């Protein structure tokens, strides 16, 4: 069953600039889908478009069988789309505990019990609950950002380069956490620089080049494809 259906979207930031030129992706229930491609291909823009942070100029976005093309970020999050930004994705001056609580601002009745669930799932957050988020290491911060994304009990998670800037060990731990989350049924759409590792844990992958679909297929197959590798392996 298709959860997210992005069809031939055109979008950009400036008036004349088109970063996405009729890009299309779908995400089915239970999938991890990774978007890869060279710098400037529009990967992050596509993710932000799904989150409602970049307006759709042409094309449609359907989520859960409903047309959400006209909704802004607040509206999209209300339908169950949760976007975890690449940078500045935690409130540095708030404690870990408050970061989690504030991420379920409109579901305050359930916020505390959901936070307990996050503490069980990610024990490091329980350990650091009283620490200010800005004191966390890069890997811990990404876990917190992901847990914050889950506090609204979303139907789908969007991750923008979750392992950017992490040590290989922390990146592996995060990929494990993403896989574990997906195994419980959470559909995930992500953009990743570490293309090979990301594709290997993905159900499917899309290759985006200059705002257009260049290829797609099962994740591990794409990772092994000799024609695809030069597109994203930096030369």
């Amino acid at each position: 069953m298709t959860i997210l259906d992005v069809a031939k979207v055109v979008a950009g930031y400036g008036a004349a600039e088109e970063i996405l030129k009729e890009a299309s992706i779908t995400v089915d229930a239970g999938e991890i889908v990774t978007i890869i491609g060279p710098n400037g291909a529009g990967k992050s823009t596509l993710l932000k478009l799904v989150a409602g942070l970049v307006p759709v100029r042409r094309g449609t976005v359907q989520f859960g069988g409903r047309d959400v093309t006209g909704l802004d970020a607040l509206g999209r999050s209300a339908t169950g789309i949760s976007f975890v930004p690449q940078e500045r994705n935690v409130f540095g001056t708030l404690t870990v505990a408050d970061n989690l609580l504030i991420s379920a601002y409109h579901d305050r009745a359930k916020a505390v019990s959901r936070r307990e669930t996050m503490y069980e799932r990610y024990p490091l957050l329980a350990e650091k609950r009283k620490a200010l988020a800005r004191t966390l290491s890069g890997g811990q911060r990404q876990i917190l950002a992901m847990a914050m994304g889950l506090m609204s009990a979303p139907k789908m998670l969007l991750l923008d380069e979750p392992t950017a800037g992490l040590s290989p060990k922390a990146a592996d731990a995060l990929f494990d956490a993403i896989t574990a989350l997906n195994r419980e049924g959470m559909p995930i759409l992500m953009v990743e620089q570490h293309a090979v590792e990301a594709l290997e844990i993905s159900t499917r992958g899309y290759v985006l080049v200059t705002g257009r679909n260049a290829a797609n297929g099962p994740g591990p197959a794409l990772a092994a494809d000799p024609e695809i590798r030069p597109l994203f392996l930096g030369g």
Partner: protein
Amino acid sequence: MLVNLAQNLLNGLMTGMLIAIPAIGFSAIYAVLRYPNFAIAAYATIGAFAGWWLNSTFGLGIVWIILIAFCVSGVVGVAAEQVTLARLRPAGVLTVAIASIALNLMLENAVRFLFGNDLRGFDLAIQPDWRILALRIGPQQVQNMLLSLAIMAAVFLFLRYSPFGKAMRAVADNSDLARLKGINPTRIAVATIFMGAGLAGVGGVLLGLDTSIDPMTGARILLSIFAAAVLGGLGSIPGAVVGALLIGMAEEVSLLAFPATYKTAIGFVAILLILTLRPRGLLGERAL
């Protein structure tokens, strides 16, 4: 000499405690809306007059005066913000800051139009100063300090523990991320103006209790408020308190060496020094 110094430090501490309340308001508005709102002086004056009017007309007690003055200044602050400054936000920080100076003059003159230029005093029993060791301190000043402490504690508890206070801190920290989490930054901004202007009004009442009030009451302490906020780190609430205490004490101690006319220069010197040596302020999160 040592007694003089101690007396001036004590006076400065009390002045600082009075400046701290509007300085918290100023810094809170800066933290969430990212511009210095100089109309805070008029909000202090309006609170002072509201408190004086309630006191002289109905003989209300201090707690009621403070609560109502908070609300009056808060409502005036939100109304003035929505009618004027909010519309100028797209034009940038500098435009809004300058407009807030104009707004300040307009509101100050509205007070002058309504109440005239006379000095007014709250209707309070005159009490002799207490003498502790060689130091003088008035019972009213002690009461003001206790009220100021109670208000600071209330603000601290609100920001630290209430969901709304946490949402305010989240917007101040990162308004884009707050929006992603379903927090409406516009609504938080309105609430912050209400709180900031309201605190300024309470500061005006405390000043009026300490001395007397006139339409210039707020304008006279504006520089001290601004200097306190910059010194502590714009946008930092504990910073505003620390800055206010330091400015208050520096102003009073300066009287030992310089004529009283130069007292206001302390604020300018503090701003100059802090911007040169430590632009993010003593407790600030980021550089200006």
